[in-house]
Protein backbone atom coordinates (compact mmCIF):
# COMPACT_ATOMS: atom_id res chain seq x y z
CA UNK A 1 0.00 0.00 0.00
CA UNK A 2 1.18 3.46 -0.92
CA UNK A 3 1.37 5.78 2.10
CA UNK A 4 1.45 8.76 -0.23
CA UNK A 5 -2.31 8.47 -0.67
CA UNK A 6 -2.79 8.89 3.09
CA UNK A 7 -0.36 11.78 3.16
CA UNK A 8 -2.34 13.47 0.37
CA UNK A 9 -5.61 12.91 2.26
CA UNK A 10 -4.10 14.75 5.25
CA UNK A 11 -2.92 17.62 3.04
CA UNK A 12 -6.34 17.84 1.36
CA UNK A 13 -8.14 17.82 4.72
CA UNK A 14 -10.12 14.72 3.79
CA UNK A 15 -11.14 13.42 7.23
CA UNK A 16 -12.97 10.27 6.15
CA UNK A 17 -10.23 9.46 3.65
CA UNK A 18 -7.51 9.86 6.27
CA UNK A 19 -9.34 7.53 8.63
CA UNK A 20 -10.03 4.86 6.02
CA UNK A 21 -6.53 4.93 4.59
CA UNK A 22 -4.96 4.72 8.05
CA UNK A 23 -7.14 1.66 8.75
CA UNK A 24 -6.07 0.12 5.44
CA UNK A 25 -2.41 0.77 6.17
CA UNK A 26 -2.73 -0.86 9.59
CA UNK A 27 -4.49 -3.85 8.04
CA UNK A 28 -1.76 -4.09 5.38
CA UNK A 29 0.65 -4.65 8.25
CA UNK A 30 2.64 -1.45 7.86
CA UNK A 31 4.53 -0.46 11.00
CA UNK A 32 2.49 2.13 12.99
CA UNK A 33 5.56 4.34 13.44
CA UNK A 34 6.08 4.35 9.68
CA UNK A 35 2.44 5.26 9.04
CA UNK A 36 2.74 8.08 11.55
CA UNK A 37 5.97 9.56 10.23
CA UNK A 38 5.73 8.93 6.51
CA UNK A 39 2.07 9.76 6.05
CA UNK A 40 0.50 11.77 8.89
CA UNK A 41 3.54 13.77 10.05
CA UNK A 42 4.84 14.13 6.50
CA UNK A 43 1.45 15.45 5.38
CA UNK A 44 1.29 17.97 8.22
CA UNK A 45 4.84 19.08 7.37
CA UNK A 46 3.63 20.06 3.90
CA UNK A 47 0.58 21.78 5.42
CA UNK A 48 2.85 23.76 7.76
CA UNK A 49 5.01 24.92 4.87
CA UNK A 50 1.99 25.97 2.80
CA UNK A 51 0.57 27.85 5.81
CA UNK A 52 3.83 29.69 6.47
CA UNK A 53 3.97 30.73 2.81
CA UNK A 54 0.37 32.06 3.01
CA UNK A 55 -0.63 29.54 0.34
CA UNK A 56 -3.34 28.26 2.67
CA UNK A 57 -5.07 29.77 5.71
CA UNK A 58 -6.46 28.68 9.06
CA UNK A 59 -9.53 26.80 7.70
CA UNK A 60 -7.42 24.51 5.48
CA UNK A 61 -4.92 23.90 8.30
CA UNK A 62 -7.72 23.00 10.71
CA UNK A 63 -9.24 20.49 8.29
CA UNK A 64 -5.84 18.90 7.68
CA UNK A 65 -5.15 18.72 11.42
CA UNK A 66 -8.54 17.10 12.00
CA UNK A 67 -7.79 14.59 9.26
CA UNK A 68 -4.44 13.82 10.86
CA UNK A 69 -6.23 13.32 14.19
CA UNK A 70 -8.60 10.80 12.57
CA UNK A 71 -5.59 8.69 11.69
CA UNK A 72 -3.93 9.30 15.05
CA UNK A 73 -6.94 7.94 16.92
CA UNK A 74 -6.44 4.58 15.21
CA UNK A 75 -2.67 4.64 15.52
CA UNK A 76 -2.33 5.79 19.12
CA UNK A 77 -3.09 2.46 20.85
CA UNK A 78 -0.71 0.68 18.47
CA UNK A 79 2.03 3.24 19.02
CA UNK A 80 1.70 2.87 22.78
CA UNK A 81 1.68 -0.93 22.51
CA UNK A 82 4.71 -0.85 20.25
CA UNK A 83 6.56 1.33 22.75
CA UNK A 84 6.99 4.11 20.20
CA UNK A 85 7.75 7.25 22.14
CA UNK A 86 6.45 10.67 21.12
CA UNK A 87 9.02 13.19 19.89
CA UNK A 88 8.49 15.10 23.10
CA UNK A 89 5.82 16.25 25.52
CA UNK A 90 4.46 19.78 25.31
CA UNK A 91 2.23 21.45 27.89
CA UNK A 92 0.06 24.05 26.13
CA UNK A 93 -2.48 26.58 27.33
CA UNK A 94 -3.86 30.09 26.98
CA UNK A 95 -2.63 32.19 29.89
CA UNK A 96 -4.62 33.31 32.94
CA UNK A 97 -7.30 35.89 32.18
CA UNK A 98 -7.41 34.99 28.49
CA UNK A 99 -10.23 32.87 27.09
CA UNK A 100 -9.14 32.84 23.45
CA UNK A 101 -8.25 29.31 22.45
CA UNK A 102 -8.45 29.17 18.65
CA UNK A 103 -4.74 29.89 18.19
CA UNK A 104 -3.70 27.63 21.04
CA UNK A 105 -5.79 24.76 19.64
CA UNK A 106 -4.23 25.22 16.23
CA UNK A 107 -0.71 25.07 17.72
CA UNK A 108 -1.66 21.97 19.76
CA UNK A 109 -2.98 20.19 16.68
CA UNK A 110 0.03 21.10 14.57
CA UNK A 111 2.37 19.88 17.32
CA UNK A 112 0.43 16.63 17.54
CA UNK A 113 0.71 16.38 13.78
CA UNK A 114 4.46 16.68 14.15
CA UNK A 115 4.55 13.70 16.50
CA UNK A 116 4.52 15.45 19.89
CA UNK A 117 2.37 14.43 22.83
CA UNK A 118 0.19 17.32 23.96
CA UNK A 119 -0.96 18.10 27.48
CA UNK A 120 -3.60 20.75 26.82
CA UNK A 121 -4.52 22.76 29.93
CA UNK A 122 -7.20 24.76 28.08
CA UNK A 123 -7.57 28.50 28.60
CA UNK A 124 -7.32 30.83 31.62
CA UNK A 125 -4.34 28.78 32.86
CA UNK A 126 -2.51 30.02 35.97
CA UNK A 127 1.33 30.06 36.01
CA UNK A 128 1.29 27.47 38.82
CA UNK A 129 -0.76 25.09 36.67
CA UNK A 130 1.70 25.31 33.77
CA UNK A 131 4.65 24.55 36.03
CA UNK A 132 2.86 21.78 37.92
CA UNK A 133 1.73 20.06 34.72
CA UNK A 134 5.20 20.25 33.22
CA UNK A 135 6.81 18.82 36.36
CA UNK A 136 4.26 16.00 36.71
CA UNK A 137 4.29 14.94 33.05
CA UNK A 138 8.03 15.51 32.67
CA UNK A 139 7.28 17.62 29.62
CA UNK A 140 10.24 19.30 27.99
CA UNK A 141 8.32 22.27 26.59
CA UNK A 142 5.67 24.72 27.81
CA UNK A 143 3.78 26.59 25.08
CA UNK A 144 1.81 29.66 26.13
CA UNK A 145 -0.71 31.63 24.09
CA UNK A 146 -2.29 35.07 24.63
CA UNK A 147 -4.53 37.06 22.32
CA UNK A 148 -4.84 40.11 24.55
CA UNK A 149 -2.29 42.83 25.14
CA UNK A 150 -3.46 42.76 28.73
CA UNK A 151 -2.83 39.08 29.34
CA UNK A 152 0.47 38.56 27.53
CA UNK A 153 2.39 39.65 30.63
CA UNK A 154 1.17 36.61 32.55
CA UNK A 155 3.62 34.61 30.41
CA UNK A 156 6.48 36.19 32.32
CA UNK A 157 5.06 34.93 35.64
CA UNK A 158 5.20 31.34 34.40
CA UNK A 159 8.78 31.79 33.20
CA UNK A 160 9.78 33.33 36.53
CA UNK A 161 8.05 30.51 38.42
CA UNK A 162 9.90 27.90 36.36
CA UNK A 163 13.15 29.57 37.38
CA UNK A 164 12.09 29.59 41.02
CA UNK A 165 11.54 25.82 40.76
CA UNK A 166 14.91 25.35 39.12
CA UNK A 167 13.22 24.05 35.97
CA UNK A 168 14.43 26.70 33.55
CA UNK A 169 16.65 25.13 30.96
CA UNK A 170 15.11 21.74 31.66
CA UNK A 171 11.70 22.92 30.44
CA UNK A 172 11.84 25.22 27.42
CA UNK A 173 9.21 27.92 27.05
CA UNK A 174 7.69 29.13 23.82
CA UNK A 175 5.16 31.92 23.43
CA UNK A 176 2.82 33.14 20.73
CA UNK A 177 -0.43 34.97 19.98
CA UNK A 178 -1.54 38.05 18.07
CA UNK A 179 0.13 40.75 20.23
CA UNK A 180 3.26 38.69 21.03
CA UNK A 181 6.51 39.50 19.22
CA UNK A 182 10.08 38.20 19.25
CA UNK A 183 11.10 41.33 21.16
CA UNK A 184 8.46 40.62 23.79
CA UNK A 185 9.57 36.98 24.05
CA UNK A 186 13.17 38.13 24.56
CA UNK A 187 12.14 40.66 27.16
CA UNK A 188 10.28 38.16 29.33
CA UNK A 189 13.01 35.55 28.94
CA UNK A 190 11.09 32.99 26.87
CA UNK A 191 13.21 30.42 25.05
CA UNK A 192 11.36 30.98 21.80
CA UNK A 193 8.64 32.81 19.89
CA UNK A 194 6.38 31.35 17.21
CA UNK A 195 4.97 33.78 14.65
CA UNK A 196 2.37 31.20 13.63
CA UNK A 197 1.43 27.59 14.42
CA UNK A 198 3.88 26.21 11.85
CA UNK A 199 6.76 28.23 13.33
CA UNK A 200 5.79 26.91 16.77
CA UNK A 201 6.31 23.39 15.44
CA UNK A 202 9.74 24.34 14.03
CA UNK A 203 10.64 25.75 17.41
CA UNK A 204 9.51 22.67 19.32
CA UNK A 205 11.48 20.43 16.97
CA UNK A 206 14.56 22.55 17.58
CA UNK A 207 14.05 22.32 21.36
CA UNK A 208 14.10 18.51 21.24
CA UNK A 209 16.99 18.40 18.81
CA UNK A 210 15.02 17.38 15.73
CA UNK A 211 15.75 20.38 13.59
Amino acid at each position, binding site marked *: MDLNELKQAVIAGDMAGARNLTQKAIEAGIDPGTILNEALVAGMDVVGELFK*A*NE*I*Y*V*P*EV*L*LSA*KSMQQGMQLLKPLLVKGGIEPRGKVVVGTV*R*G*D*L*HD*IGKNLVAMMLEGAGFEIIDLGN*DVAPESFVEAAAQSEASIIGMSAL*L*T*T*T*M*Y*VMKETIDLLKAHGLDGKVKTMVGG*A*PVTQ*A*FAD*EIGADGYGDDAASAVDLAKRFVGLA
Partner: protein
Amino acid sequence: MTELLELVELRPILGDGAMGTMLLARGLQMGDCPEAWNLDHPDVVKGIHDDYVAASCDFIETNTFGANPIKLSRFALEGKIEEIIASAVDIARRAAGERCMVAASIGPTGALLQPYGDISREKVADAFRVTARLVEKAGVDFFIVETMSDLEEAKLAIGAIKEYSRKPIVATMAFSKGAKGYRSMMGATPQQAALALVDAGAHLVGTNCCAGPLEAAEILSEMRQTTDCPLVAQPNAGLPKLEGGNAIYPETPESFAAGMEKVLAEGASIIGGCCGTTPEHIREIALLMGKC
Protein backbone atom coordinates in the same frame (compact mmCIF):
# COMPACT_ATOMS: atom_id res chain seq x y z
CA MET B 1 -32.04 62.68 15.15
CA THR B 2 -31.19 62.27 11.50
CA GLU B 3 -31.02 58.66 10.42
CA LEU B 4 -27.53 57.22 10.05
CA LEU B 5 -27.93 56.38 6.38
CA GLU B 6 -29.06 59.92 5.52
CA LEU B 7 -26.27 61.38 7.62
CA VAL B 8 -23.47 59.45 5.88
CA GLU B 9 -24.69 60.87 2.57
CA LEU B 10 -23.94 64.34 3.90
CA ARG B 11 -20.62 64.01 5.74
CA PRO B 12 -18.27 61.55 7.45
CA ILE B 13 -19.49 60.34 10.84
CA LEU B 14 -17.26 60.10 13.89
CA GLY B 15 -17.65 57.17 16.26
CA ASP B 16 -16.09 56.62 19.64
CA GLY B 17 -12.87 54.87 20.66
CA ALA B 18 -12.08 51.82 22.75
CA MET B 19 -14.26 50.51 25.57
CA GLY B 20 -12.30 47.40 26.65
CA THR B 21 -8.91 49.02 27.15
CA MET B 22 -10.62 51.99 28.87
CA LEU B 23 -12.33 49.61 31.33
CA LEU B 24 -8.99 47.92 32.01
CA ALA B 25 -7.49 51.32 32.80
CA ARG B 26 -10.35 51.85 35.27
CA GLY B 27 -9.94 48.62 37.19
CA LEU B 28 -11.38 45.79 35.10
CA GLN B 29 -9.19 42.77 35.79
CA MET B 30 -7.83 40.45 33.12
CA GLY B 31 -10.25 37.61 32.62
CA ASP B 32 -13.22 39.50 34.06
CA CYS B 33 -16.31 39.85 31.90
CA PRO B 34 -16.35 43.46 30.57
CA GLU B 35 -20.12 43.31 29.98
CA ALA B 36 -20.74 42.42 33.64
CA TRP B 37 -19.66 45.98 34.42
CA ASN B 38 -22.95 47.19 32.93
CA LEU B 39 -24.53 45.69 36.05
CA ASP B 40 -21.75 45.98 38.64
CA HIS B 41 -20.16 49.33 37.70
CA PRO B 42 -22.64 51.23 35.50
CA ASP B 43 -21.12 54.53 36.68
CA VAL B 44 -17.71 53.57 35.28
CA VAL B 45 -19.17 52.53 31.91
CA LYS B 46 -21.21 55.74 31.75
CA GLY B 47 -18.12 57.77 32.64
CA ILE B 48 -16.30 56.37 29.60
CA HIS B 49 -19.30 57.08 27.35
CA ASP B 50 -19.52 60.62 28.82
CA ASP B 51 -15.90 61.28 27.90
CA TYR B 52 -16.48 60.17 24.31
CA VAL B 53 -19.66 62.25 24.03
CA ALA B 54 -17.70 65.25 25.35
CA ALA B 55 -15.06 64.56 22.67
CA SER B 56 -17.74 65.40 20.07
CA CYS B 57 -18.36 62.00 18.49
CA ASP B 58 -21.57 61.39 16.51
CA PHE B 59 -22.30 58.03 18.09
CA ILE B 60 -21.16 55.83 20.96
CA GLU B 61 -21.15 52.05 21.10
CA THR B 62 -22.84 50.09 23.86
CA ASN B 63 -20.68 47.91 26.12
CA THR B 64 -22.12 44.75 24.56
CA PHE B 65 -19.21 43.46 22.44
CA GLY B 66 -19.28 40.03 24.11
CA ALA B 67 -22.94 40.05 25.15
CA ASN B 68 -23.96 36.88 23.35
CA PRO B 69 -25.00 33.64 25.09
CA ILE B 70 -21.94 31.69 23.91
CA LYS B 71 -19.36 34.16 25.20
CA LEU B 72 -21.27 34.98 28.40
CA SER B 73 -21.49 31.27 29.20
CA ARG B 74 -17.71 31.29 29.65
CA PHE B 75 -18.36 33.51 32.68
CA ALA B 76 -21.54 31.61 33.68
CA LEU B 77 -23.44 34.85 32.95
CA GLU B 78 -25.67 33.71 30.06
CA GLY B 79 -28.67 33.80 32.38
CA LYS B 80 -28.15 37.52 32.90
CA ILE B 81 -27.95 38.47 29.24
CA GLU B 82 -31.23 40.40 29.20
CA GLU B 83 -30.23 42.54 32.20
CA ILE B 84 -26.73 43.07 30.80
CA ILE B 85 -27.99 44.30 27.43
CA ALA B 86 -30.83 46.39 28.88
CA SER B 87 -28.42 48.08 31.26
CA ALA B 88 -25.78 48.64 28.56
CA VAL B 89 -28.26 50.37 26.28
CA ASP B 90 -29.72 52.40 29.14
CA ILE B 91 -26.27 53.59 30.23
CA ALA B 92 -25.34 54.58 26.67
CA ARG B 93 -28.66 56.38 26.14
CA ARG B 94 -28.23 58.37 29.32
CA ALA B 95 -24.71 59.37 28.26
CA ALA B 96 -25.72 60.17 24.67
CA GLY B 97 -28.82 62.20 25.51
CA GLU B 98 -29.76 64.25 22.45
CA ARG B 99 -26.13 64.82 21.54
CA CYS B 100 -25.30 61.61 19.72
CA MET B 101 -26.57 58.28 18.44
CA VAL B 102 -26.23 54.92 20.16
CA ALA B 103 -24.95 51.88 18.25
CA ALA B 104 -25.00 48.30 19.51
CA SER B 105 -21.60 46.64 19.48
CA ILE B 106 -21.89 43.01 18.36
CA GLY B 107 -18.63 41.04 18.59
CA PRO B 108 -17.80 37.43 17.74
CA THR B 109 -18.80 34.44 19.87
CA GLY B 110 -15.19 33.30 20.21
CA ALA B 111 -16.13 29.85 18.92
CA LEU B 112 -15.09 28.34 15.59
CA LEU B 113 -17.82 27.16 13.24
CA GLN B 114 -17.98 23.56 12.01
CA PRO B 115 -16.30 21.91 10.20
CA TYR B 116 -13.25 23.86 11.39
CA GLY B 117 -14.40 24.03 15.00
CA ASP B 118 -17.01 22.26 17.07
CA ILE B 119 -20.01 24.56 16.99
CA SER B 120 -22.86 24.40 14.49
CA ARG B 121 -23.97 27.35 12.36
CA GLU B 122 -27.42 27.04 13.88
CA LYS B 123 -26.11 27.41 17.45
CA VAL B 124 -24.11 30.52 16.52
CA ALA B 125 -27.07 31.96 14.60
CA ASP B 126 -29.29 31.31 17.64
CA ALA B 127 -26.82 33.11 19.90
CA PHE B 128 -26.87 36.18 17.66
CA ARG B 129 -30.68 35.97 17.49
CA VAL B 130 -30.88 36.22 21.29
CA THR B 131 -28.58 39.25 21.29
CA ALA B 132 -30.30 40.93 18.34
CA ARG B 133 -33.75 40.50 19.86
CA LEU B 134 -32.67 41.92 23.23
CA VAL B 135 -30.78 44.84 21.70
CA GLU B 136 -33.71 45.73 19.44
CA LYS B 137 -36.03 45.58 22.45
CA ALA B 138 -33.73 47.89 24.42
CA GLY B 139 -33.66 50.29 21.47
CA VAL B 140 -30.52 51.40 19.64
CA ASP B 141 -30.10 53.55 16.51
CA PHE B 142 -28.06 51.04 14.56
CA PHE B 143 -25.91 47.91 14.88
CA ILE B 144 -22.16 47.44 14.50
CA VAL B 145 -21.03 43.87 13.88
CA GLU B 146 -17.30 44.16 14.55
CA THR B 147 -13.89 42.53 15.05
CA MET B 148 -15.07 39.54 13.06
CA SER B 149 -12.30 37.21 11.90
CA ASP B 150 -14.61 34.71 10.19
CA LEU B 151 -16.75 36.00 7.33
CA GLU B 152 -19.26 33.18 7.87
CA GLU B 153 -19.81 34.20 11.50
CA ALA B 154 -20.21 37.85 10.47
CA LYS B 155 -22.88 36.80 7.96
CA LEU B 156 -24.73 34.83 10.65
CA ALA B 157 -24.70 37.91 12.91
CA ILE B 158 -26.04 40.16 10.13
CA GLY B 159 -28.72 37.59 9.26
CA ALA B 160 -29.84 37.36 12.90
CA ILE B 161 -30.08 41.15 13.25
CA LYS B 162 -32.18 41.39 10.07
CA GLU B 163 -34.66 38.93 11.57
CA TYR B 164 -35.34 41.27 14.48
CA SER B 165 -34.61 44.78 13.28
CA ARG B 166 -34.85 47.14 10.32
CA LYS B 167 -32.14 49.40 11.71
CA PRO B 168 -28.95 50.00 9.70
CA ILE B 169 -26.16 47.44 10.09
CA VAL B 170 -22.45 48.27 9.98
CA ALA B 171 -20.16 45.24 9.57
CA THR B 172 -16.40 45.41 10.07
CA MET B 173 -13.73 42.74 10.17
CA ALA B 174 -10.17 42.45 11.42
CA PHE B 175 -7.46 41.92 8.81
CA SER B 176 -3.73 41.50 9.12
CA LYS B 177 -1.07 41.78 6.48
CA GLY B 178 0.90 38.73 5.39
CA ALA B 179 3.02 37.75 2.41
CA LYS B 180 -0.10 37.78 0.20
CA GLY B 181 -1.54 41.05 1.47
CA TYR B 182 -4.43 41.63 3.85
CA ARG B 183 -6.48 38.63 5.01
CA SER B 184 -8.87 37.86 7.83
CA MET B 185 -7.84 35.07 10.20
CA MET B 186 -9.87 32.65 8.09
CA GLY B 187 -8.26 33.89 4.88
CA ALA B 188 -10.79 36.30 3.36
CA THR B 189 -9.42 39.29 1.45
CA PRO B 190 -10.90 42.76 2.09
CA GLN B 191 -12.56 42.59 -1.35
CA GLN B 192 -14.16 39.21 -0.65
CA ALA B 193 -15.29 40.38 2.77
CA ALA B 194 -16.79 43.63 1.50
CA LEU B 195 -18.79 41.86 -1.23
CA ALA B 196 -20.05 39.12 1.07
CA LEU B 197 -20.98 41.47 3.91
CA VAL B 198 -22.96 43.71 1.56
CA ASP B 199 -24.61 40.61 0.08
CA ALA B 200 -25.56 39.47 3.59
CA GLY B 201 -27.34 42.79 4.13
CA ALA B 202 -24.84 45.15 5.77
CA HIS B 203 -25.44 48.81 4.92
CA LEU B 204 -21.88 49.90 5.61
CA VAL B 205 -18.76 47.70 5.60
CA GLY B 206 -15.16 48.10 6.63
CA THR B 207 -12.48 47.17 9.09
CA ASN B 208 -11.77 47.56 12.79
CA CYS B 209 -9.17 46.32 15.25
CA CYS B 210 -6.56 46.40 12.50
CA ALA B 211 -3.03 47.53 13.35
CA GLY B 212 -3.50 51.28 12.82
CA PRO B 213 -4.90 54.05 10.60
CA LEU B 214 -2.46 53.52 7.72
CA GLU B 215 -3.36 49.83 7.50
CA ALA B 216 -7.05 50.77 7.69
CA ALA B 217 -6.61 53.17 4.76
CA GLU B 218 -5.05 50.40 2.66
CA ILE B 219 -7.83 47.96 3.55
CA LEU B 220 -10.54 50.49 2.63
CA SER B 221 -8.81 51.19 -0.66
CA GLU B 222 -8.98 47.45 -1.46
CA MET B 223 -12.64 47.27 -0.46
CA ARG B 224 -13.44 50.27 -2.65
CA GLN B 225 -12.36 48.27 -5.70
CA THR B 226 -15.35 45.97 -5.32
CA THR B 227 -18.11 47.96 -3.66
CA ASP B 228 -19.74 51.39 -3.76
CA CYS B 229 -21.08 50.75 -0.27
CA PRO B 230 -20.16 53.41 2.33
CA LEU B 231 -16.98 52.36 4.13
CA VAL B 232 -16.02 52.25 7.80
CA ALA B 233 -12.68 52.18 9.65
CA GLN B 234 -12.10 51.94 13.39
CA PRO B 235 -8.42 50.92 13.76
CA ASN B 236 -6.32 50.35 16.86
CA ALA B 237 -3.89 52.97 18.14
CA GLY B 238 -1.09 50.90 16.63
CA LEU B 239 0.27 47.59 17.92
CA PRO B 240 1.10 47.74 21.63
CA LYS B 241 4.63 47.78 22.95
CA LEU B 242 5.79 46.76 26.39
CA GLU B 243 6.97 49.56 28.63
CA GLY B 244 7.62 48.87 32.29
CA GLY B 245 5.16 45.99 32.35
CA ASN B 246 2.37 47.97 30.70
CA ALA B 247 0.98 47.77 27.18
CA ILE B 248 1.60 51.10 25.50
CA TYR B 249 -0.18 51.82 22.24
CA PRO B 250 2.22 53.83 20.07
CA GLU B 251 -0.24 56.13 18.26
CA THR B 252 -0.70 59.39 20.15
CA PRO B 253 -3.94 61.30 19.67
CA GLU B 254 -2.11 63.57 17.21
CA SER B 255 -0.47 60.82 15.13
CA PHE B 256 -3.68 58.79 15.16
CA ALA B 257 -5.72 61.74 13.89
CA ALA B 258 -3.12 62.45 11.21
CA GLY B 259 -3.40 58.82 10.08
CA MET B 260 -7.19 59.03 10.06
CA GLU B 261 -6.95 61.88 7.55
CA LYS B 262 -5.65 59.26 5.10
CA VAL B 263 -8.64 57.06 5.98
CA LEU B 264 -10.97 59.99 5.24
CA ALA B 265 -9.10 60.56 1.97
CA GLU B 266 -10.07 56.99 1.01
CA GLY B 267 -13.65 58.13 1.32
CA ALA B 268 -14.54 56.60 4.68
CA SER B 269 -18.08 57.39 5.81
CA ILE B 270 -17.63 56.32 9.42
CA ILE B 271 -14.38 56.54 11.36
CA GLY B 272 -13.48 55.89 14.97
CA GLY B 273 -11.05 53.91 17.08
CA CYS B 274 -10.58 50.44 18.52
CA CYS B 275 -8.09 49.06 21.08
CA GLY B 276 -5.87 51.64 22.73
CA THR B 277 -7.77 54.68 21.49
CA THR B 278 -9.10 57.13 24.08
CA PRO B 279 -11.41 60.14 24.20
CA GLU B 280 -8.31 62.27 23.48
CA HIS B 281 -7.77 60.38 20.20
CA ILE B 282 -11.40 60.99 19.23
CA ARG B 283 -11.26 64.67 20.22
CA GLU B 284 -8.19 65.13 18.04
CA ILE B 285 -10.07 63.70 15.04
CA ALA B 286 -13.08 65.87 15.87
CA LEU B 287 -10.81 68.92 15.78
CA LEU B 288 -9.48 67.91 12.36
CA MET B 289 -13.04 67.41 11.09
CA GLY B 290 -13.98 70.84 12.44
CA LYS B 291 -16.51 69.39 14.85
CA CYS B 292 -15.25 71.25 17.91
